[in-house]
């Protein structure tokens, strides 16, 4: 009896070589990413919502401020960035909500793979279906708000570096509030203060570009924020999820 037990524990799943474990985690990452993307594309009408919201918010600015082209040019960098930030924040609930409701989030948490990697996969999938379309449509909105052509590259680059930070930091907030019934308002209260640096550097870079000034400094800052968020946020979000799932 005991001679039968011993080899099983010695060669059990915990004792596998690190390389095998690493490739396992990568496979889990890819699998979860594919699953989330498939799920998102099965609900196509929801895919368009953040973009539509973004377009409508930007339409409100000329209506509220007046159609003066010079005024619009002056507020365009900030207006586009605020719109993108709000659109990205309002779509955040979707990262964990449906998985939390149907229980698959608990199964994900029970899997032997490192939770931060799985959280990273979910955030990446969410960014691909909500963040990326915002970036694609942003130049068009810049055009509508009379943003100078010279600022378009900075707009796209700053959004490329900035929206992942919004998604990653947002994932922490969603993970903390996913168990609550009315988490939406609270989520904005938790996240908006944390979004301030991204907004400052993002809108600042577009503003500088519109005035013909160099934008490298702001983009470097955004890059640093993005790197920091990629490294740290999945761990915080994973820890927050474990608490919410208790």
């Amino acid at each position, binding site marked *: 009896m005991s001679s039968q037990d011993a080899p099983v524990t010695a060669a059990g799943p915990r004792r596998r070589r690190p390389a095998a474990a690493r490739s396992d985690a990568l496979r889990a990452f890819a699998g979860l990413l594919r699953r989330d993307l498939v799920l998102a594309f099965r609900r196509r009408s929801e895919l368009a919502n953040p973009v539509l919201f973004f377009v409508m918010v930007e339409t409100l600015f000329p209506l509220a401020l007046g159609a003066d082209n010079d005024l619009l040019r002056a507020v365009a960098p900030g207006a586009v960035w605020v719109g993108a930030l709000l659109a990205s924040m309002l779509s955040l609930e979707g990262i964990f909500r449906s998985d939390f409701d149907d229980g698959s989030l608990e199964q994900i948490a029970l899997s032997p793979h490192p939770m931060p990697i799985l959280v990273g996969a979910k955030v990446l999938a969410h960014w691909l279906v909500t963040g990326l379309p915002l970036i694609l449509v942003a130049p068009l909105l810049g055009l509508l708000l009379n943003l100078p052509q010279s600022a378009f590259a900075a707009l796209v680059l700053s959004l490329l570096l900035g929206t992942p930070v919004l998604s990653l*930091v947002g994932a*922490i907030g969603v993970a*903390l*509030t996913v*168990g*609550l019934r*009315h*988490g939406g308002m*609270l989520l904005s*209260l*938790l996240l*908006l*203060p*944390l979004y*301030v*640096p991204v907004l*400052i*550097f993002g809108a*600042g870079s577009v503003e500088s570009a519109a005035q013909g000034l160099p934008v490298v400094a702001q983009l470097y*800052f955004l890059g640093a*924020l993005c790197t920091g968020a990629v490294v*740290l946020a999945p761990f*915080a979000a994973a*820890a*927050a999820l474990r*608490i*919410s799932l*208790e």
Partner: protein
Amino acid sequence: MHRFISQWASPRHFYRLSGKLLPWLSALTIICMLVGLVGGLYFAPPDYQQGNVFRIIYIHVPSALLSMMVYVVMAGAAAVNLIWKIKMADVVARCSAPLGAAFTFLALVTGSIWGKPTWGTYWVWDARLTSELILLFLYLGYMGLRAAIETPETAARASGILALVGVVNIPIIHYSVDWWNTLHQGTTISFTTDNISTSMLVPLLFMIVAFMSYYAVVLMLRMRCEILDRERKSRWVVQMVEGG
């Protein structure tokens, strides 16, 4: 050392020890506040540029300092609770949050009252004012999350994570806002440059000590209430209440 810490970490001993400490701390608060206020409002000379207006510094600077210090205390306590699961640390974090928010609010209000005669307007989007305002939002978010989660244990840990995320972000927010726009006067207290006269500085230092010990006193009072509430079913509380 270990025994000392474990004594403070037990609610019952904390209750006993804080009861002994409170009169002393209260006396320290009152003495320092009297010295600071009399020195600051009566003995210190008027500023050569700002006249008597500058005297609001004796409230403004200590509350601004405390607003940041309390957040660090709160986040540190939250980390202790998350790592070692010491419940008393969570009591510290929970009771600190409204105090920190109050200090932040006080700093904002006194700052804007000070801004009217010196800058000509109650509010400017200056870097330090803005980061102080964002700090207030962080406190409110912490309290909001804490209030929204019903299970006390979960609320403690979830809001603890938020406090830690906030404490990582505070320097980033501070420097990004600083880079964005600054109008605020430079730091008043500095070890390297001499930009405040001694007769003005000494009352300010007294006020800072007074604010810190005031924070300690109120924190302990709140913690004692919280302990009694949490431990209301345990024997020592029942005995103490029934014994008069």
